[in-house]
């Protein structure tokens, strides 16, 4: 079934330009940062942060793309994942205090799996009770999902207490590897690896499976997918739950990254993830990935160069991207 022939259509070019922005931003920061070793450390930190934000935001962008649902309560799954991790890791002190990285990772993976399961299960209830009654009504979605997040935060306070609690990195994940004279924190390298695995798995599902095909088609034209005989709502619930579980996973990683948890952490990350999915193009998983890396890098470079403008810098990034591509880096073709 090759599509050769003289009068064939122009081949769709893979739009790599937005992807090039990532190394471009990193290179632009090099002369500003000055020292090569600091630059390597900041870049790895930025990529790690970007990967974690991607894991958190990927579900949100597909949820919006599929059903036009604006879920401002997504952040609560981040906090939930992180708090669940504290409860899972506490009784496993034997594993986390061991100096062996492999033993530590067993404990961390166990925490990740439990956090994903809990966040996914809460996602089922959140979709059923809070999101489903307000399909198609954006204002109500914004209000009620924000309300859901406040309730979630209060429940977290009721269960785990209102005070800041520590989520220390297991012993063997602390410290750095030295690459020349640049220090690369072990945990950041692991976060980059986990993020890359999630990204590749997501791309595989979206590109190679029929469910993924249905998601991509549903983001473009929900009505037509239903006219072909598929239940987009069922698909949406699946994506919502998977997205919540991924936010839970991202929450564990974010918590270990910060090493301290407050019940409001979801709301704090919310701003970043909305910037990311707008930069990426609402509904686009690939755009979300590039957007998250840009935001992660930007936050770390400006955090080092001019800490006072760190959050502003990401809003500036969003403005610049939207001036260039008003629909985001990878606009989704919609009806």
């Amino acid at each position, binding site marked *: *079934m*090759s*599509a050769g*022939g003289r009068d*064939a*259509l*122009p*081949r*769709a070019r893979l739009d790599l330009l937005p992807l090039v922005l990532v190394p471009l931003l990193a290179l632009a920061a090099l002369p500003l940062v000055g020292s090569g070793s600091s630059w390597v450390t900041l870049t790895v930190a930025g990529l790690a942060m970007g990967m974690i934000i991607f894991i958190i935001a990927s579900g949100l962008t597909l949820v919006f793309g599929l059903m036009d649902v604006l879920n401002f309560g997504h952040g609560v799954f981040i906090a939930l994942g992180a708090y669940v991790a504290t409860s899972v890791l506490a009784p496993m002190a034997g594993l986390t205090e061991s100096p062996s990285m492999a033993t530590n990772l067993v404990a961390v993976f166990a925490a990740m799996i439990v956090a994903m399961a809990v966040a996914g299960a809460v996602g089922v209830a959140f979709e059923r009770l809070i999101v489903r009654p307000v399909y198609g009504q954006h204002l109500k979605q914004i209000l009620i999902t924000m309300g859901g997040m406040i309730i979630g935060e209060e429940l977290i306070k009721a269960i785990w207490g209102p005070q800041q609690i520590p989520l220390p990195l297991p012993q063997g994940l602390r410290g750095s590897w030295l690459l020349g004279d640049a220090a690369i924190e072990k945990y950041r390298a692991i976060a980059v690896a986990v993020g890359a695995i999630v990204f590749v798995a997501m791309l595989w599902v979206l590109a190679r499976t*029929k469910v993924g*095909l*249905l998601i*991509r*088609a549903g983001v*473009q*034209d929900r*009505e*037509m*997918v*239903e*006219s*072909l*005989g*598929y*239940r*987009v709502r069922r698909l949406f619930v699946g994506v919502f739950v998977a997205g919540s579980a991924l936010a839970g996973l991202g929450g564990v990683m974010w918590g270990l990254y910060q090493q301290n948890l407050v019940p409001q952490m979801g709301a704090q990350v919310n701003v970043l993830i909305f910037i990311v999915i707008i930069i990426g193009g609402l509904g686009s998983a690939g755009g979300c990935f590039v957007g998250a890396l840009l935001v992660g890098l930007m936050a770390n470079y400006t955090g080092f160069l001019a800490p006072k403008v760190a959050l502003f810098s990401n809003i500036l990034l969003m403005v610049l991207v939207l001036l260039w591509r008003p629909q985001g880096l990878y606009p*989704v*073709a919609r*009806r």
Partner: protein
Amino acid sequence: MNAAHAPAGGLARDAAEPLLRLSGVHTHIGAYHILHGVDLDVPAGRTTLLLGRNGAGKTTALRTVMGLWRASAGSVRFQGRELVGSDTPAVAQQGIAYVPESMGIFADLTVGENMLLAARGARDESAIDAERLRWVFDLFPAMRKFWNHPAGLLSGGQKQMLAVSRAIVEPRKLILVDEPSKGLAPSIIQNMLSAFRELKASGVTMLLVEQNFNFARQLGDTVAVMDDGRVVHRGAMAELAQDESLQQRLLGLSLGAHQ
């Protein structure tokens, strides 16, 4: 299955209930009352043309059958079963294919991926019924040629071909097509016409909405004309095609002027 040479044997079923029957269907869209009691029969094995001026309610009638708009009163019976109240996926699963006026092509997906979605039974492209696919490729060779290309890059005519190909990639009992000739160049309309003739010969039941009477009269067995949310005329296409004053009255056109 060999659709091209296996008429479904629907021609003898005229006396029984038609495959699709709309009775007294009312549809509201928001505050607007669009369909005012539509009565329409689509006999099995035949091609029925739904004609009428812009805004007469033709598209709304198709969308109501599909459950995309909900009928506020009346009944839509398919094979004797009530469709009103079923959601769109359930309607489609009864064996009804729908090609909307917008064609509903997934622009970011390849032609092959578009076809795979329409083939509900297939898990991947290699699982699409090969004989059926060959038949589709014979009707629309461009589909084979551009199989791996994003559908968004196809020309308007090719998109329409893809939309129709999706509707027939698996056997369906009824095919609804909203304006198959809309916006197509004359030579493409000829292609489309011969493809629909071939489809007709396969015995599939079709309900087509058309504005182009010249296209419609070459395909229709029976015809229904809508005006202001009602069916105001029904009968054999041959009769309407011969009666210019009736055309003038119902459609506000003279065929002579259209050619």
